């Protein structure tokens, strides 16, 4: 069996669905496949997004996929000095919310379908070869093998990023650039303020951080990301320790275990080739400091989907044409990813004692808004070491 399409999107995560939607809206024939039997499940995510991010993508919030509106942030240093950034203290809080990814991801795929994309679930891409006018992708679904002929392949297969590599792009993540994460969704979580997301820094999560993201009532995502190059224990072992020691989770019980990788090494230089584009986690479109990749991956997906449709209608599928995606991505997300890479590298040099003294110095600082940029700007003010490393950037 041979299926033909203008654009084939491989992976129906937030990035793939956004690309499929915009490509279909642009008039191209779009097919999107995912190996999962249920889009969005199991989740590999703490589910936090900024409201501004959703807005910039033109997505209207839907109560069916929002579990919690957030009021602020609590940062906790190793000796439990905490810094509160809440709307009562700050003029311009950057508001956010916690999603229900299992529902959100499905809704994004439904939007792509409504825009005209065909969707194939429980369908795995197993390989691909270049042809004169595109790619021939091998796929398997429910025991059947078939091929799909596509003029453009959009690789949106998440942290595995196998598809782009089949096409010759170098998207392999090194272990030092891949957060290894484990998380429980728990009930019975006793947070000091369950309208705030919490970040825990230091040796609780070597090379990353631990988090508690509230999902309403006493429910929360409790997890952490580590770098395997910085510890001998697994992410799961660190999580068990964190949950046992944290006052908020000592009486909580897990109802779900989530694990996964989060690429935090930034975007590779080359994101397109003739007939090929890579987006989302597969393209390192993740804030390297926070690990957040939903909004940035969808932004990449939007830019790629629009341009792919334009390329199809003009009949120019060359790298030269598709390169505009690289340039626009660099502008929209790349610049900020590069800045946060530097902050992440700086954070990796700090020991528990230094983190404690930063948290203490923050006690006397007035924050004007809640945003990662604001935090780094204030960090530069209280820490001479940070000023030296980051002063020019922020």
């Amino acid at each position, binding site marked *: 069996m041979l299926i033909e399409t203008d654009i084939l999107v491989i992976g129906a995560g937030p990035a793939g669905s956004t690309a499929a939607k915009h490509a279909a809206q642009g008039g191209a024939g779009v097919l999107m496949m995912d190996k999962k039997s249920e889009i969005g499940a199991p989740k590999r995510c703490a589910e936090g997004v900024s409201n501004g991010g959703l807005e910039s993508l033109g997505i209207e919030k839907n109560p069916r996929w929002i579990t919690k509106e957030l009021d602020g942030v609590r940062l906790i240093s190793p000796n439990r000095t905490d810094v509160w950034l809440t709307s009562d203290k700050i003029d311009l809080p950057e508001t956010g919310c916690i999603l229900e990814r299992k529902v959100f991801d499905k809704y994004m795929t439904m939007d792509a379908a409504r825009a005209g994309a065909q969707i194939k679930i429980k369908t795995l891409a197993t390989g691909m070869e270049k042809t004169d006018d595109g790619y021939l992708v091998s796929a398997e679904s429910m025991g059947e093998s078939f091929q799909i002929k596509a003029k453009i392949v959009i690789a949106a297969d998440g942290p*595995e990023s196998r598809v782009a590599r*089949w096409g010759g792009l170098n998207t392999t993540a090194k272990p030092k650039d891949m957060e290894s*994460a484990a998380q429980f969704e728990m009930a019975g979580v006793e947070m000091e303020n369950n309208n705030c997301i919490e970040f825990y820094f230091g040796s609780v999560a070597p090379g990353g951080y631990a988090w508690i993201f509230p999902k309403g009532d006493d429910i929360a995502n409790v997890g952490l990301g580590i770098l395997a190059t910085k510890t001998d224990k697994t992410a*799961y072992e660190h999580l068990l320790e964190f949950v046992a020691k944290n006052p908020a989770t000592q009486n909580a019980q897990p109802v779900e275990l989530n694990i*996964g990788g989060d690429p935090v090494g930034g975007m590779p230089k080359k994101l397109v080739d003739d007939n090929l584009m890579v987006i989302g986690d597969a393209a390192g479109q993740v804030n390297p400091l926070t690990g957040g990749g939903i909004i940035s991956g969808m932004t990449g997906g939007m830019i790629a989907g629009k341009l792919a449709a334009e390329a199809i209608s003009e009949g120019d599928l060359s790298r030269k044409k598709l390169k505009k995606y690289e340039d626009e991505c660099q502008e929209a997300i790349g610049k900020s990813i590069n800045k946060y890479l530097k902050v992440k590298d700086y954070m990796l040099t700090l020991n528990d004692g230094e983190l404690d003294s930063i948290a203490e110095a923050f006690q006397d600082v007035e924050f004007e808004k809640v945003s990662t940029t604001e935090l780094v700007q204030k960090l530069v003010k209280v820490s001479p070491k940070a000023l030296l490393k980051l002063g020019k950037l922020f």
Partner: protein
Amino acid sequence: MIVKEWCMYCGECAGVCPRNLIEVRELTLKFNEDQCKECSLCIQVCPVKALEEDK
């Protein structure tokens, strides 16, 4: 490679394999063992230690 029964098919191992040898299906993990260079990177990053070298 021995894949333990508690593997959750998250795909992190596949992302770091320098030779792109790991196929992650919804409920199976397949290695292209012939080309494996035994670098152990896949074992190193697994969040739940579900991989073990087949000695």
